[in-house]
């Protein structure tokens, strides 16, 4: 099966219109396999992707470019209990997950 997603590239376009990720600390909730993460993480200073699906997170970690591993991290957590101190992030992205 050959499935192509967002063939018009609108998601990336709108995401960058709505937020400036450059140098920002970003929390992505519902990152899955990291499909959306790769659309902006290069610009951010730190990206944490959260999901409750271990298998998807494994794929995201494997796909993570080696030269970006220091600033992109994936973890298993629920949005209801975020394992971070207050005022840690500049931007939060609810990725297909509200």
């Amino acid at each position, binding site marked *: 099966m050959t*499935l*192509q997603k967002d063939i018009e590239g609108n998601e990336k376009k709108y995401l960058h219109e709505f937020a400036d990720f450059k140098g920002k600390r970003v929390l992505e909730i519902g990152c899955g396999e990291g499909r*959306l993460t790769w659309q902006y993480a290069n610009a951010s200073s730190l990206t944490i992707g959260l999901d409750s699906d271990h298998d998807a997170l494994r794929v995201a970690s494997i796909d993570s470019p080696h030269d970006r591993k220091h600033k992109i991290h994936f973890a298993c957590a629920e*949005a209801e209990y975020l394992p971070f101190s207050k*005022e840690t992030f500049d*931007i*939060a992205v609810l990725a*297909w997950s509200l």
Partner: protein
Amino acid sequence: MVHALSEIRRVLIPSGILIDLRPMLDRWEVEVASARETNVTGRVNDFEIGVADDTAANRSMAEAESNGWFIREREEFFSYVYSWDTPHEMEEWINEEWNDFIELDEEATHATRSAWALSDGDARAQLRMKMLIARWRKGE
């Protein structure tokens, strides 16, 4: 959902930004598209449970807004297209992955198969989803 928004607010810096990005059910269009042309062949049917999920998400954001947790700054809708080589692959995907919230009825199925069979060799079956993107600023 409201508790999650409270948590997100907690971990955001003052004036931090929340981006809410999600598909919204709206009887998405089914298309057959080639390099030469795109034809709409029908629409999917939405199930009540999926519509209820969208309503619940909207209510949660409205509650967060009324609590003063977030201030809506901008909101838009855009198309997000899923594209398959054949109508059969699209039908399979809908039946296996999205059968909880949408269905492709007989009429749309046949119209899409027919249009694809009669179209150019590069034609694909597509689903045009409606996406919401909203930017919220953390409230005081």
